């Protein structure tokens, strides 16, 4: 997948670059609106990560251009402003999703995948790995052909693991993914532990391999090998 990162902060760009690079994505980055326009004029991208606050203008103005000339590109807005207005305007102008800083890189990746699935894979929204397959339309998880009885959060969690295979997912990142930003509840990571435990138990019961392991002190990891 080819990704264009439009973000003025070099360090953040590098982090995203590194993380997505390991997933095999081809990333290009730019810090200004002008350069972004040039790049968009010359190349095709599957996904554009767009920071709203750029030194030479508001990133939202780029949306029009992207929508006019790059219909197939997914646009994910990255903003430090948690302002609802930006969110609504962004989505109205044709952005596919919106993520606010500070985000976990795994979360960003999950969002990129979700947007990509929604748009590029048509109706066939199956995420599969070995014996596990998830249907993101019907929220059905299967091990081989056995239907897994998962709760919505467990399904969400499994999908998050599958998208971020071989990555250490911190409890914070998992909690933020499952319950969103504003719940102060996240402080209680017991819930994360419980969810992961239940999920592992259900997968094993259905005859699946136990891919999920605990990473000491940090969180969990879905091991593909």
């Amino acid at each position, binding site marked *: 997948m080819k990704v264009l990162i439009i973000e003025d902060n070099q360090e*953040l760009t590098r982090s*995203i670059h590194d993380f997505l690079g390991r997933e095999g994505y081809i990333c290009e980055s730019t810090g200004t609106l002008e350069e972004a326009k040039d790049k968009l004029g010359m190349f095709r991208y599957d996904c554009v990560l767009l920071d709203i606050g750029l030194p030479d203008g508001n990133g939202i103005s780029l949306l029009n251009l992207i929508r006019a000339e790059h219909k197939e590109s997914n646009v994910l807005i990255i903003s430090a402003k948690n302002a609802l207005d930006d969110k609504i305007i962004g989505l109205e102008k044709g952005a596919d999703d919106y993520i606010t800083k500070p985000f976990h890189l795994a979360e960003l990746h999950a969002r990129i995948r979700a947007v990509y699935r929604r748009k590029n894979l048509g109706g066939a929204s199956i995420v599969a790995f070995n014996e596990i397959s998830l249907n993101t339309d019907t929220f059905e998880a299967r091990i081989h052909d056995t239907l897994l009885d998962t709760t919505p959060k467990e399904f969400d969690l499994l999908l998050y693991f599958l998208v971020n295979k071989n990555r250490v997912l911190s409890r914070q990142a998992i909690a933020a993914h499952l319950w969103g930003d504003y719940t102060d509840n996240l402080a209680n990571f017991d819930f994360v532990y419980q969810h992961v435990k239940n999920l592992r138990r259900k997968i094993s019961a259905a005859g699946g391999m136990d891919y999920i392991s605990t990473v000491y002190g940090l969180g969990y990891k879905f091991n593909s090998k």
Partner: protein
Amino acid sequence: MKLTTKFTLWYFGIMLVVLLIGGAIVYYEIQWKISRVEVVRHERLNDIIAQQIRQGGDYTGHPTRKRAMVAVIPRDSVPRGVVTFYTRGVDWNPEFQSNEYKLVVTSFYTINGLHYRVTTYSFIPSFYQLLPGVVDSFKWILLLLLVLVVISGGLISKYILAPFKRTMRVIQSFDLKQKESIRLPGTRTSEFRELNEFLKKMTDKAREDYQSLKEFTENASHELQTPTAIIRGKLDLLMESDIRDEQAILIAGMQNALERLSRIHSSLTLLTKLENKEYEAREPVCISRLTRETIGSFEELMQMKALTLYSDIEEKVYVSLHASLADLLLTNLISNAIRHNMSAEGKGIIRVRLHRDGLVIANTGHEPQVPTAELFERFKKGNPGSDSIGIGLAIVRQICDLSHFDIAYQFSSGFHILAVSFNTRVPASKFLQNFSLPLH
């Protein structure tokens, strides 16, 4: 009290004082004048009698002698330096058979070497008889003035205060968020012109301050969130590298602190936005549906904590609230009820009741260590050891204040009860009383 009424009353008071003093002056002036006129007449009469004595002849029975007394007195009885004097007093008037006010004028003359004392008198009207007349006339004057002041006060104030009232109307419709400065009507009254100039300056300043505060909030949000995002990203990457267990613990500590930092920051930013009234209700939101959805999204957590939920949600309850705020309100209240619940298996209970006038959420839990009202303050926690940042209820209260909802919090018989009243006429505390604890 209205300004006009105040002015009128003051004028009336001043008029009363002035008229009282004026009445006294008039009274004494008349009294003095009457005496003076009478004294002058008698002095002239005494002079005429003295002239008659000089000319010689018998004047007994002459009209001048009707109330006169002429006496020759020894030289040493003549007072020195005094030609004439008068006395006043009440005396018997035989003509009218009553006690009347009597004026006696005594003059001394030296005619042909003899010393004469000529005394004449007359009865004049008593001053006391004048008093009612004076009082009467002043009463009428007072009445007339009062009527005039009241009528003119109403009319003139309407005319004079018109610019003031127009200014008031403009100020009442003033909104900090408005982009253009206020337009006040022109006036020729210098005080009002000053007031208008002052108001214009003040509102402009307030608007500018509001704008810069808003910009600051947004900038602070932007500038702080980016470094936080970088730290978080780097930590995410660091986690993936080959690390030892003790390093993992260090990273986890940083992750936790970072989580708190970003949560505190976004909560504070949100509170500021709420205070700046950036989220205004555009259309009524169906709180019944939202409550059901929020409960649904927390169902798994409740199951994990083995909490029993009793909910009683009235259909189609609409409140005037921004949808995001309604969501935030419910999320905070319900997640609070879950988090601060009993941890013992099967002991925890959550009760949610929504009806047209309000929302009541009750949960079992430990007794708070600080008064419940203080828990609405920022960074106040019922249990200081808990991991939460203690800002959820502050946000809830801010949302309630903003929407003119009343909120009350009480701990009784092992239940934390939080009530929100959507109806301004019904205080939230009423729901606390009505929230009977026996479960259905």
